[in-house]
C-alpha cells in the first residue's frame, strides 16, 4: 500500500508540474462557473415570473432548481475532461520509459494501478473542491439542504471515480496520450448514452442495459437519495475497470 501511496502522491504533484493539469483545472472551473452563473440567472428569472402565482412558487426550491442541476452539469463537464486527466497516466510513462522504474521497483502491478488511480482521483478531488465557492453562493443566497449538497458531491466523486477507472484502462493499452484520450472518451460516452438503447432492446436486454447505464444510477444521488444499488453499481464498475487495468499491466510483463 505504501508503494501505491508513493505513486499517488507523485501523480498528484505531476498534474501541477505540467501545463495539462492546469489547463484541465482551469477549463473545468471556468465551464462550471459559467453553467452555474447561467443557472442562477435562470433561477432568478423564473422566480420573478412565478412570483405572480403564489401557489407555484411553493414548488420552486434551490435543491431541485439549483443544486441538483449544478451536479448534473458537473457530471457532463467531467465526462469531457476526465479522459484528459487520465490519458497520460500509463501511456506517457510507457512512452518515456519511466514505467521501467515502476516495473523494477519492489511494488506490485496492482499497487502501480492503484497508485495511478488514487493520484488521478486526488487531482479530480482538487477539481471538485474548486466548485465549492459556487455552492457557498447558494448557501449565502438561499437555504439548500446540506444533505443534498453532500450527496451531490458524493455522486460527482463516484462518477469521477468511474470515469477515471475507464480512462486508466484506455491509457494502459497505448503509448499515445491522444489515443488514450479518444478511446477513453468514446468508452465513457458509450456508458453515458447506454440508456438510449434500452427501449428498443426488448424487456430483458433493455433491463440489463438500463442497469449498466451511468445516468440511471446518478439521478437518485444528485437528488440526495442514497440507494445501496447505486453505490454498489459504482463500486463494482470501478473495481471491474481497475481489475482489467491491473491484468493489462501484469500481462505486459509476459506478452
Amino acid at each position, binding site marked *: 500500500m505504501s508503494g501505491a501511496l508513493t505513486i499517488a502522491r*507523485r501523480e498528484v504533484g505531476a498534474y501541477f508540474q*505540467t501545463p495539462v493539469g492546469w489547463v484541465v483545472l482551469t477549463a473545468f472551473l471556468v465551464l462550471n462557473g459559467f453553467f452555474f452563473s447561467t443557472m442562477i440567472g435562470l433561477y432568478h428569472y423564473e422566480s420573478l415570473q412565478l412570483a405572480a402565482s403564489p401557489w407555484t412558487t411553493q414548488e420552486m426550491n434551490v435543491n431541485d432548481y439549483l443544486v441538483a442541476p449544478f451536479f448534473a452539469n458537473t457530471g457532463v463537464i467531467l465526462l469531457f475532461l476526465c479522459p484528459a486527466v487520465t490519458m497520460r497516466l500509463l501511456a506517457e510513462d510507457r512512452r518515456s*520509459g519511466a514505467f521501467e522504474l*515502476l516495473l*523494477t521497483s519492489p511494488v*506490485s502491478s496492482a499497487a502501480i494501478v492503484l497508485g495511478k488511480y488514487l493520484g488521478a482521483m486526488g487531482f479530480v478531488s482538487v477539481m471538485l473542491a474548486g466548485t465549492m465557492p459556487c455552492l457557498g453562493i447558494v448557501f449565502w443566497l438561499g437555504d439548500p439542504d446540506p444533505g443534498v449538497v453532500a450527496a451531490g458531491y458524493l455522486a460527482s466523486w463516484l462518477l469521477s471515480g468511474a470515469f477515471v477507472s475507464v480512462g486508466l484502462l484506455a491509457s494502459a493499452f497505448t503509448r499515445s496520450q491522444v489515443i488514450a484520450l479518444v478511446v477513453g472518451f468514446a468508452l465513457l460516452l458509450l456508458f453515458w448514452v447506454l440508456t438510449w438503447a434500452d427501449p428498443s432492446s426488448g424487456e430483458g436486454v433493455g433491463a440489463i442495459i438500463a442497469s449498466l447505464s451511468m445516468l440511471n444510477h446518478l439521478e437518485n444521488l444528485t437528488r440526495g437519495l442514497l440507494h445501496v444499488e447505486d453505490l454498489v453499481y459504482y463500486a463494482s464498475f470501478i473495481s471491474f475497470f481497475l481489475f482489467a487495468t491491473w491484468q493489462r499491466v501484469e500481462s505486459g510483463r509476459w506478452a
Partner: protein
Amino acid sequence: MIEVDGLTRRYGATVAVRDVSFTVGRGEVVGFLGPNGAGKSTTMRILAGALGATAGTARIAGHDVFEAPAEVKRRVGYLPERPPLYEAMCVSDYVAFAAKLKGVADIAPAVDRALSVVDLTDVRHRVIGHLSKGFRQRVGLAQALVHDPEVLILDEPTSGLDPAQRVEIRSLIRDLAASDRTVILSTHVLAEVESVCQRAIIIDNGVMVAEDTLEGLRSATGGVELVVARPDSAGAALAEHGEVEDLGDGRFRVRTDGDKREQLAASAVPFGLLELTNRAGLEDVYLRLTGDEAQA
C-alpha cells in the same frame, strides 16, 4: 550472486533469448556483449524484474526472480538503455521518489549519498528535462543506486553520449565496481568492456556464444591469422610456433604463447605470405563470435 539457467524468452514466434545460462560471482564486473537485437536488453529486463521469461530460472542473491520479485528488486539497481525519468521533476525529488518506491527507510541521507556518488549534488534542484543527456544518464544511475543495491544491471549506460561523457560514465562505473558491487554491463562498445570488466558474456541472436575472462576469450579465439598463396605444407611449418587451425583457402590461424609474429612471418614467406593479421584484440574475438566479421 547471479545464477541464470536455461533462460528463454519468446515474443510470439520470435525467440529473443534462447536457453541462456551463466553465473556471476559477488563483486564481479561482467560485460554483456552482443550486436543490437542480440537479446542483451531482454535478458537484463528479465533479471531486473521488468519482464517474465518463457522458460528457465534466474536467481539473484539466492532469490528467484519470478517467485520472489520484491526480494530481488530490493537488491538490484537497474538502469535501462533509456533512463526511466520523469522529466518534469527536479533531480532530488525524482531520486527521493525512487528511494521511497524501493522501500528506503531514511530517504534524505540515501538521496544525498546517491547524488554525491554520481556527482549531481550541484544540480539537485534542476528540472531533469533541462539537463544534458550525460547528466540525465547520471540521474538514471542515481535512481539505480539510491537503495544501495548489491547488484547493478546497466543496459548500455554510455549509449548516445559524446566521447567526454562516455569517459565520465565509464570512470563512474569503475568506481562503483570498486565498492564490491556485482555489476552486469551491456554494451556493444568493446573499449568499455576492456576498461571496466573482468569477464564477458557474448550473446548473438539470443544465444550465448561465449563466456570467459577477457584474457580467456582472447586466447581461445584470438591469435595470428595468415594468408599464404601456396598452402601445401604451410600448416606443418607454422605448427612449430603454436597451435594451427586451417581455415581453408590458404588461411591459417595460429595461437601462440607470446608475440611470435616475426617467426611466423619467416616461416610463411616460403609459401607466399600474402597477409598477416594479429587477431588478439577483443574486437576480433567479438566479430568472430557474433559472425559480424564479414560486415565489419
